[in-house]
């Protein structure tokens, strides 16, 4: 290490000469064909100090998107393909489109009606009728003339439109010509950093792909926007013909066939697994019943007192006062029983989420492969709109509170799984290693090190799960779930603003109380 530093010669920044040989070799390697042009262009760009471009790439200007495609600059390709098509549409409208067609058509119709009135005037016997019809015909004829004038004006504008199109096209070409080398130089810089995933050189594949894209997109769009009565084929997807082609007959549509098939499958599965689904429902119901008895069966003063004291012990006097106020709100407005039903629903869902989710999370935290497999499922559980999976839930589990809890679990479980796994992975390797070095078994490692250190993350997950379950509780009223959600659904159906808002606030208060209590309970001495 000493002999290399000894030889280093220090040169003042102003005296440093730019050595281009190595750079030129690298640029040549990047650009492939027409290397000498691009090395010269990149030199100029490298020497430029201002913002304005100092090179002009004639081929980029002439060929436009085809050039960027051949050089694999796809961002520039799509941008200027769209801009050039816009310019071409203007040119097309001016050149062969018929901008006055609409007015001419209208004028034609009016002229016809005027003629009709003239005819009736001619046929009329009474003088007053003749006069009336003639006047009508005259007025309509005037309107027709106005429209014809407008059509002529529009025709006269066509030249202007075409000119605008031409100017736009020229401007886009110039911009491409001036900026092509700069953009390409950027691509070169990226390629230097990551040669494996940045395309370089000029490949036949890219050129052909560019030509095909331009040929497929350009003419169709220009045709659609410049011709007045374009083909119906292009306006809407011909799904009737397509489904007839796929099915071989046109008695029914592809949609109906697939939908019927799925319905049959789901019904068959629901019947086949009936016992299993009934068992799951019974299990969920027993958890819910236990909670319901505790919350609604117990005398209301006891429940209120327990909740308030819990809030006080877990999160302090301020949260306790807020809790008391929220409970008073629900009780005074007559929501006490249904509010407690909602709490029981959320409680049962959260309990099941935690009991199932935390072990799964621990497993996913330890096994990367299991996590990779499960991640798409978790994403699906969170992104699939709730309305969509309510349908199979009805099919398999029927309606009422227990199926509602199952739907809530689907929506609410991913956060606790994810955050448990995240927490498990976040446990420092060094602490785990220390425990193992002192002879800890796998179970001791999990119990003494991994779970305690992952606990803050796990608790964040539980908290999120609680809030997500609460938001789902309104939606499950659609499949017969009870509680405050049902009140709100009824209010929604009759557009009853007052009851709806009061119920909404009741849910909001419940959510805030639960959130505060849970957060307070999980805030431990060693994590703030």
């Amino acid at each position, binding site marked *: 290490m000493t002999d290399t530093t000894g030889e280093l010669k220090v040169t003042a920044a102003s005296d440093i000469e730019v050595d281009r040989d190595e750079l030129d070799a690298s640029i040549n390697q990047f650009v492939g064909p027409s290397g000498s042009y691009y090395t010269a262009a990149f030199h100029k760009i490298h020497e430029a100090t201002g913002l304005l471009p100092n090179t002009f790439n004639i081929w980029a200007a002439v060929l436009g998107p085809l050039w960027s495609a051949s050089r694999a600059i796809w961002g520039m390709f799509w941008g200027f393909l769209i801009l050039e098509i816009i310019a071409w549409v203007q040119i097309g409208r001016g050149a062969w489109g018929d901008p006055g067609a609409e007015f001419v058509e209208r004028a034609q119709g009016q002229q016809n009606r005027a003629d009709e009135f003239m005819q009736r005037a001619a046929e009329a016997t009474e003088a007053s009728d003749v006069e009336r019809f003639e006047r009508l015909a005259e007025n309509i004829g005037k309107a027709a003339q106005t429209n014809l004038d407008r059509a002529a004006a529009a025709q006269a504008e066509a030249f202007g439109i075409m000119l605008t199109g031409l100017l736009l096209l020229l401007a886009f070409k110039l911009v491409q010509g001036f900026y092509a080398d700069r953009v390409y130089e950027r691509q070169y810089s990226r390629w230097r950093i990551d040669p494996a995933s940045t395309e370089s050189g000029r490949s036949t594949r890219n050129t052909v792909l560019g030509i095909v894209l331009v040929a497929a997109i350009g003419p169709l769009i220009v045709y659609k926007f410049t011709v007045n009565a374009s083909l119906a084929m292009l306006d809407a997807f011909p799904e009737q013909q397509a489904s007839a082609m796929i099915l071989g007959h046109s008695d029914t549509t592809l949609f109906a066939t697939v939908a019927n098939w799925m319905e049959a499958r789901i019904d068959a599965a629901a019947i086949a697994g009936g016992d299993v689904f009934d068992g799951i429902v019974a299990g969920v119901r027993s958890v819910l019943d236990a909670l319901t008895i505790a919350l609604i069966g117990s005398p209301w003063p006891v429940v209120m007192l327990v909740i308030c004291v819990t809030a006080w012990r877990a999160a302090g006097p301020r949260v306790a006062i807020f809790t008391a106020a929220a409970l008073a709100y629900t009780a005074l407005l007559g929501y006490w029983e249904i509010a407690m039903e909602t709490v029981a629903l959320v409680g049962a869902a959260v309990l099941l989420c935690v009991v199932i989710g935390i072990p799964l999370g621990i497993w996913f935290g330890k096994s990367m492969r299991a996590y990779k497999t499960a991640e798409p499922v978790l994403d699906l559980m969170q992104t699939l709109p709730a309305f969509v999976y309510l349908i199979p839930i009805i099919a398999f589990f029927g309606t009422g509170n227990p199926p509602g809890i199952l739907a809530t679990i689907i929506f609410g479980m991913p956060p606790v799984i994810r955050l448990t796994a995240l927490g498990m992975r976040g446990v420092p390797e*060094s602490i785990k*290693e*220390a425990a193992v*070095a*002192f*002879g800890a078994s796998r179970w001791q490692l999990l119990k*003494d090190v991994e779970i305690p250190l992952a606990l803050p993350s796990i608790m964040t997950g539980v908290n999120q799960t609680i809030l997500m379950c609460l938001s789902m509780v309104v939606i499950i009223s659609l499949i017969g779930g009870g509680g405050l959600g049902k009140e709100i659904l009824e209010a929604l159906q009759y557009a009853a603003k007052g009851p709806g808002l009061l119920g909404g606030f009741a849910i909001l208060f419940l959510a805030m109380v639960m959130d505060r209590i849970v957060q307070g309970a999980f805030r431990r001495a*060693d994590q703030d």
Partner: protein
Amino acid sequence: MSESVVKLTDVWKIFGDRAAEAMAAVKSEGIGKPEVLERFGCVVGVQSATFDVPRGEIFCIMGLSGSGKSTLVRHVNRLIEPTSGNIEILGQDVSAMSEAELRAVRATKIGMVFQHMALMPHRSVRDNVAYPLEIRKVSKAKRWAVSDHALELVNLVGYEDRLPKELSGGMQQRVGIARALASDPEILLMDEPFSALDPLIRMQLQDQFKALVAQLQKTTLFITHDLDEAIRIGHRIAIMKDGLIVQIGTPEEIVMNPADEYVREFVQGISKLKLVKAHSIMEPLDSYSGSLKGAPRADEGADLDQLIDLAVDTDKPVVITDSGKDIGVVTKPRLLRGIQGGKDD
């Protein structure tokens, strides 16, 4: 010396999916580290490590980062499985142990201290120190007593109920040492324990640690990337480079006779005053032609520092004695060269 406590024989560690193939190729063809990487995509962590640490010795393993020293020491408690070779602790083959036996050995025979302390943030200092005992299901009363005693050894009385984050870095590392000592193990593995600390604290801890180990008679494997530290603490030093042990010897041997250019470069900046002893620079008695009357005398074990003190007050050379008998002389030129690091005149 006495019985061997930790004994490694031809230990190899090759990382990668094709480690077994690579190992076979190394054994049969004798290919080197770069070739293993090229042909099998495997990284050689440790190459043919062989050493033997007797009871009570502090054995330093010194090397730059990436030289495989941490990997090597993790073979002793089988945190890393060797690709080939044999590891014995107190006469027991570590590789042959079952899971349960291995855990028992880790819990009772080996204490380990880590560079980044690796204390459990949610447990008090006392519970951190007591954790090795908790693993062995020792009663709470007993493990608290043991833990308090261990904390006393590292001068942390009064911090038992603190959380680790309330302590400074140096104190945290003392907790780490107390934890390693808590189960009264025979072997201590120290993985760069003082590297993350500032120099003053580091020196203090080095001295405290050295005294503690001498008192408790623990056999210690001490990893460091700092040769000064190795020399301060170690009875013997192994120098590692690219997974290979380049030289093993006492600090004086390493400083006076570096095995190769690599070691020499390391040793260059080391002060020899306390390291080099009179017997290694003295010349035969008859090589000095002048009179030795009135010349100062020093034992052969005196270091250069002491010789300088004697030499400044006289024109005569220092006579070196072994149990009262004159055995050699150290002239001033010889002494000066000795300070330089044993260059010949």
